[in-house]
C-alpha cells in the first residue's frame, strides 16, 4: 500500500480559539423580565433554607432540608424516606414535561431566563460591567498593557466574582444541615470539613462557569441545545429575525435612495447591535441556531434602534416559522398556542401531577412489609407442629412512638411468637416502633401439633396502629410439607 496524495493532509489547528464575547449593556422589556427572573431565582435560592417549619420535637424544623445522615428529605409538609425516592422520579418526569411544554410554547425560555448558568452569568456580567465598563471599554482593557488601573480593575472584578461564588457555594450547603447553625459555624470556622470542601468545590465551579466559561457551557457542555432541535416546531415562539421585513439590509440613506428608485429596501440597517448585546455572541439574523439561548436581548437592542430611526419595532421578535410563511403568502399572523402537541403535554403533566398528588395525599404514616424466611422454608418442630418464619419490618413516620397490634389470619389455629414483640391477649403481638424509625421483627407462626397444612396456604398479616387506627395488611404464604 502506498499513501495517496490526498491522505497527506494538513488538518489545521487542533482547536478553535474561542472568540471572546463582550455583551453590551441593553435595556428594554426582555432585559427587565430577565432581571425579575434573576431576582426571583436568587431570592428563592438564598431565602428558602431559612424558612422554618414546625414538625414537633423529634424532627428538624427547617422547611426544606436534605438530611443525609438520617436519610430523610423534608419539603414543608412532605417528609420522604429513601424507599420513597420514586417521588423524585415523578418530580423529574414532571420537570421534563414542563420543559417540553414551555419549549413548544415559547422556545428556550428556560435557557434564556431561568437556567442557573444564565442567571449567574448575568450576575457576573453585571459585576464585570460595573467594574470594567461596557463592551467597548472591556475590549480596550483586554488589549491594554498591564497598568495599575488594569490591575486594580482585574483584582476588583475577580475578588467580587470569587465572593459571589463563595456565597453561592456556601448557600448550597444550607440545604443539607440546619441553616442558621451552619451559617454561624461556617464563619467561626467550626463547621465540618465536608461543608468547607463542598462550598469550595461549588465556589470553584461557580467562578469558572459563570465568570470564565459562560456561553461555552451552552455551546459545548449542555445537552439541552441539542435536544431542543427535536422539540421545537413551526408553531413554537422562537426569537426570530423577520428577514421578510429586514432584507435586503442597507443603511437609512441607502434605503431612502432605493425607495426613490422604486427598489425594495429592508428595515435592517446592519448596525450589528443585536450581535453586540448577545450573551452567546451569535448573529440572530442567521436564523434559529444552537448557540441562541433565546433570551430576547437582541429584541430589546433592535427595538431601541428601530425607535430611534422611527421604524416599527419588533424586527426581531418572538415569532414562529409558520407566521413567516403566512406573511410571505400575504396572510395575517396567527398564533397556535393550543395545538395537539401542547395539549398532549398538558395532559401528560396533569396525569403525572395527579398521580403524584394522589400518592402524596393517600400515603400512610405507617407501613408493614413482610419477607418469608427462605431457609428453612418451614420447620417441623419438636412439639409436632409446622412453623414458618417471617421477617416483618414496621415503619413509623410519626414524630412520636407508635404501638402496633399484629394479627395473623388464613391458617387455622396458628400461634405467633417473636423475641422482639410483646405477646398481647388473644394471641396478638404488640410492637413498639420509635418515632421516625423502622423496626425489624422476626415472627414465627406455628400450627398446633399434628396439624397438616397444605404445601402453600395464603396467610394474612394485619398491623393496626393503636393511636391512628391505620391498618396495614400484607398477604404472604404459609408453607408445609
Amino acid at each position: 500500500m502506498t499513501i495517496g496524495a490526498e491522505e497527506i493532509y494538513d488538518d489545521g489547528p487542533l482547536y478553535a480559539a474561542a472568540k471572546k464575547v463582550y455583551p453590551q449593556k441593553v435595556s428594554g422589556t426582555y432585559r427587565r423580565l430577565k432581571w425579575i427572573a434573576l431576582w426571583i431565582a436568587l431570592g428563592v435560592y438564598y431565602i428558602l433554607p431559612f424558612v422554618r417549619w414546625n414538625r414537633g420535637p423529634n424532627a428538624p424544623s427547617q422547611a426544606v432540608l436534605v438530611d443525609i445522615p438520617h436519610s430523610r428529605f423534608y419539603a414543608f409538609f412532605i417528609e420522604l424516606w429513601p424507599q420513597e425516592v420514586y417521588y423524585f422520579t415523578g418530580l423529574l418526569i414532571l420537570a421534563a414535561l414542563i420543559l417540553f411544554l414551555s419549549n413548544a410554547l415559547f422556545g428556550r425560555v428556560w435557557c434564556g431566563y431561568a437556567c442557573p448558568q444564565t442567571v449567574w452569568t448575568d450576575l457576573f456580567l453585571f459585576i464585570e460591567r460595573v467594574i470594567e465598563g461596557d463592551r467597548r471599554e472591556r475590549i480596550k482593557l483586554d488589549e491594554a498593557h498591564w497598568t495599575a488601573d488594569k490591575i486594580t480593575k482585574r483584582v476588583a472584578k475577580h475578588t467580587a466574582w470569587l465572593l459571589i461564588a463563595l456565597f453561592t457555594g456556601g448557600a448550597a450547603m444550607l440545604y443539607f444541615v440546619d441553616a442558621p447553625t451552619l451559617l454561624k459555624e461556617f464563619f467561626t470556622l467550626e463547621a465540618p470539613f465536608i461543608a468547607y470542601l463542598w462550598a469550595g468545590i461549588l465556589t470553584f465551579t461557580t467562578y469558572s462557569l459563570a465568570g470564565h466559561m459562560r456561553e461555552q457551557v451552552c455551546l459545548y457542555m449542555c445537552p439541552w441545545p441539542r435536544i431542543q432541535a427535536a422539540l421545537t416546531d413551526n408553531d413554537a415562539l422562537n426569537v426570530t429575525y423577520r428577514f421578510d421585513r429586514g432584507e435586503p439590509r442597507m443603511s437609512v440613506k441607502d434605503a431612502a435612495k432605493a425607495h426613490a428608485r422604486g427598489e425594495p429596501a429592508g428595515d435592517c440597517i446592519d448596525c450589528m447591535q443585536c450581535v453586540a448585546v448577545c450573551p452567546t455572541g451569535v448573529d440572530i439574523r442567521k436564523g434559529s441556531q444552537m448557540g441562541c439561548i433565546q433570551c430576547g436581548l437582541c429584541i430589546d437592542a433592535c427595538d431601541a434602534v428601530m425607535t430611534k430611526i422611527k421604524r416599527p419595532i419588533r424586527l426581531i421578535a418572538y415569532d414562529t416559522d409558520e407566521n413567516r410563511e403566512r406573511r410571505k403568502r400575504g396572510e395575517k399572523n396567527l398564533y397556535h398556542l393550543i395545538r395537539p402537541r401542547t395539549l398532549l403535554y398538558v395532559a401528560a403533566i396533569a396525569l403525572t401531577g395527579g398521580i403524584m398528588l394522589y400518592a402524596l395525599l393517600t400515603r400512610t404514616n405507617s407501613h408493614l412489609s413482610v419477607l418469608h424466611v427462605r431457609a428453612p422454608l418451614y420447620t417441623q418442630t419438636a412439639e409436632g407442629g409446622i412453623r414458618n418464619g417471617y421477617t416483618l419490618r414496621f415503619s413509623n413516620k410519626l414524630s412520636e412512638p407508635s404501638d402496633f397490634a399484629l394479627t395473623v389470619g388464613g391458617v387455622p389455629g396458628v400461634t405467633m411468637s417473636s423475641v422482639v414483640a410483646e405477646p398481647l391477649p388473644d394471641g396478638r403481638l404488640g410492637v413498639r416502633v420509635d418515632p421516625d424509625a423502622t423496626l425489624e421483627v422476626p415472627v414465627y407462626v406455628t400450627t398446633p401439633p399434628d396439624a397438616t397444612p397444605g404445601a402453600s396456604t395464603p396467610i394474612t398479616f394485619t398491623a393496626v396502629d393503636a393511636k391512628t387506627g391505620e391498618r396495614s395488611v400484607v398477604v404472604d404464604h404459609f408453607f408445609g410439607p
Partner: protein
Amino acid sequence: MITDPVQVDKISGQTTTGHEWDGIRELNTPLPRWWLYLFYLTIAFSVVYWMVYPSWPLVSSYAPGLFGTTNRGLVAADIAAGQAARAQMAGGLEKATVDQIAADPKLLEIALAEGKAAFGDNCTPCHGSGGQGQPGYPNLTAGRWLWGGTLDQIQTTITHGIRADDPDTHTSAMPAFGKDGILKPEEIREVVSYVRTIDKLEPEPGVDVAAGKKIFADNCVACHGEDGKGNTDMGSANLTTKVWQYGSDIKDLTSTVTYARNSTMPAWGKRLDPVTIKSLAVYVHSLGGGK
C-alpha cells in the same frame, strides 16, 4: 492535493478535514481550546496517577507506587474503621448477660444483627443459612436440643463446643452397640423398631417390638430415659420429637445403634470474642427453637 491542502465546503463555507466518504467531506469543526487543555490535563493526571498508584507490572511483581497504596490496605483500613464503629454500638453487649440482652430491646436489636452476621460467617457450613441443619448436623430451629435450648445453655455449648479440645466441653459417648458386640444384629433390629414406635413411626413388619422394648430398658434408658425423652444434662437425644439429626429410617437408626455417632463441634470460645458469642447465642435462640 498537497499543493492545495485546505479545502473549503462550498455550502457552509467551512474548511473540511479532507476525509472523504463517497464524495461527502467531513467539515472541520475543531473543539474549543479549553477543551483541548482539559484533555492535556487528563493526560498529565494519568501520569501522576500512574506514579502514585501501583500500576507498572514488573517481571515477577509490580511497582508499588509512591506511597505504597494498595486496595487490600484500603479495604483493611475500612474494615478496621467499620469494626471500631461496631464496637462502639456493641459496647452495651460486653457487660450484659445473654438474659439481660434478650430483655432489652435496644441490646437485642444489636445482638440479633451481630449474631446474624457471625452465624453466616461461622455456623452456616454445618447448620445451614437459617439454622435448619442437615443430616448429621442439628436443626437449631426445631426446638429439639441435645445440650439444652435456654440462652445460657446455648451460650455454654457455643463457647466450649462438643467433644472439643476444651476442658469444659460437652462430652457424652453412646456405645457402638453393634460394632463392639454388645447387641446382636437381630437385637438391634428389634430395638430400632421399638424406638420407631415411641416416635409414632411404623416398626419393621414382623419384628418383635416387645423384645425391642426389653432391650431398650436394659441398654438405653440410663441415658435416654424410660420414655425416651433424653436428657440435656448428659446430651442424650430426645427420641420422641420426629426431629432426627441422623434420620429416622430403619437403615439410619440401625446404623446409629450399630456404630454410634458422637459428632463434634469446635469450642468457639477459642476463636470468637465473648460479645460475638453472646450475640450468636441470642440469635440462635431467636430462630424459633429457643426455650
